[in-house]
């Protein structure tokens, strides 16, 4: 069915398309600029000659970054935090969300209120910081894994999903003699793959990008995640230290593009999976947000 459009409508539609294409350019261009700069000659970058394509194409910055032991150690640490952290997140969130989705659980509204309250009130940064020190987690990997292990928001999203699983399914399994752990593992979880995917992604991206807890809880550089090393390179501009022993001009030449190369190396995993997972992210927001 084609509805004939009036002239003002056509003008609007065309302007809208143009405007939105311009918006997408604004969203993409910063990342594109970083990408082409990482392959460009530093003098060209500093002179403002790089705009859409690499100038003086080279991969020296990447070579240097790959030779840097700090970055490999940090990359490994980040993988540990992402995998172990996400696993803990998923287990605790599921164990919390499933019982609270059962309508016949006595006191569930009370426990729910107990959890939801933490979304709106907290003791603040300092008591949380002292708590971690008191528990002896300071300067250990656990300081990045345990605090924040359950997001109340994600727990609600998951619980909302579990509530949509028909009660009859669970009741009949119960009559057949299955206890709750088995029901969760063999009936509920296999039906919950979409929400598990969403949760995995939310939590994993969170761990990948996290830096603040690492900054305040870690001293030992061998435990630092990638983002913290990135902070040194990008924010504190210690790209120079990395190059001790190279001549002055060369220091400049490489330090400029090293920044861009490290950004790319730290962001590529997310950029690679992102297009495939985007629909799940959106679904997650919808489950959580628009259940009226």
């Amino acid at each position: 069915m084609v509805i004939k459009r009036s002239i003002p409508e056509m003008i609007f539609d065309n302007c809208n398309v143009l405007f939105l294409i311009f918006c997408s350019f604004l969203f993409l261009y910063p990342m594109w600029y970083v990408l082409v700069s990482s392959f460009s000659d530093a003098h060209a970058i500093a002179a403002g000659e790089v705009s859409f394509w690499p100038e003086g194409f080279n991969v020296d910055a990447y070579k240097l970054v790959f030779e840097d032991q700090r970055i490999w150690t940090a990359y490994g640490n980040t993988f540990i935090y992402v995998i172990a952290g996400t696993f803990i997140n998923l287990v605790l969130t599921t164990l919390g969300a499933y019982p609270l989705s059962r309508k016949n659980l006595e006191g569930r509204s009370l426990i729910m209120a107990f959890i939801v309250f933490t979304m709106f009130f907290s003791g603040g940064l300092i008591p949380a910081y002292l708590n971690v020190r008191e528990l002896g987690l300071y300067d250990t990997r656990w300081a990045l894994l345990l605090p924040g292990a359950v997001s109340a928001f994600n727990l609600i999203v998951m619980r909302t999903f579990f509530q949509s699983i028909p009660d009859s399914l669970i009741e009949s399994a119960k009559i057949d003699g299955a206890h709750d752990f088995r029901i969760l593992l063999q009936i509920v979880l296999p039906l919950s793959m979409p929400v598990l995917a969403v949760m995995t992604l939310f939590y994993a991206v969170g761990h990948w990008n996290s830096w603040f807890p690492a900054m305040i809880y870690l001293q030992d550089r061998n435990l630092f995640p990638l983002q913290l090393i990135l902070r040194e390179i990008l924010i504190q501009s210690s790209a120079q230290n990395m190059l001790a022993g190279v001549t002055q001009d060369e220091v400049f030449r490489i330090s400029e593009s090293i920044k861009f190369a490290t950004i790319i190396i730290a962001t590529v995993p997310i950029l690679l999976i992102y297009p495939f997972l985007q629909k799940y992210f959106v679904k997650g927001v919808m489950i959580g947000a628009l259940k009226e």
Partner: protein
Amino acid sequence: MAVPLNAAKAKSRKLPTSRSSVSLKRMMSNRYLYLMLLPTVLYFLIFEYKPMYGAVIAFKDFNPFAGVAGSPWVGFKNFEKFFESYYFFRLLKNTFLMSFYSLLFIFPASLAFALLLNELRLKKLKSFLQTVSYLPHFISLIVICGMIIDFTKPGGIINSLLLGIGFITEPIQFLILPEWFRTIYVGSGMWQSLGWNSIIYLAALSGINPSLYEAAVVDGAGRWKQLTHITLPGILPTVLILLILNVGTLLNVGWDKIILLYNPGTYVTADVISTFVYRRGVMEADYSFSAAVGLFNSIINFTLLVLANRISRKTTESSLW
């Protein structure tokens, strides 16, 4: 920001009137469910509620060796010190302005972006735009701030662009000048969250009954009429509750981005309550004082949210709890 509109709907008001043997029996039959809940409940006790108790150090002169319980009480001394300090109004003003400007610019822009996307008839372009606009949400803050620092420096692309079109004659040191800090904060915030914020509106838009539009077309309504008579009223409840929630979190500004971008020269506009707490508490180990400042902030945030929620419930019949 995503909002669990039904967050606490579970908190239904009906509690059993009598703890009869029936409910006890039901609890017994659900014992595995309680066992399952235990680790999660423990997590919340240890990592959420224990720090809430720890916040009492705001009323004490905390000594790490004596612990929270063993430190002497000092009443409101820490709060008074904060209220009387030179920083109090500056922090309050900066915190408020930072989120007020974000609300003022990013909130309507996200709504407008969603509406424009919704009017788009090329489905392929629409899904491409959605993919592209959500992307910044997943890029790490460190990377984003690294890009901001690089783009805004003299010789960076923003200065080159402004010089190129003749808008300025001298490069501007954006991150060194306090008057630019909020612009950078809000501008980059727009880039980060515009697309992601629009998701919730797009979801609300897709929930509008298509037959309403069909009927409107039959009645001869044009696109503008459809927008003002069907689309806008259709998403109004969502818009209102998000607006009120935003108002409720006006004094809740995160420290992350600011810590990465500010410097002592820009404190005058950039320093907010949470960054101040971080500096005084974590860096200078002035625990009791900074805990008092943090607690003050938490209480204000909570009060604002409760008020906003009450107003929302009265006026729009939608509320967080």
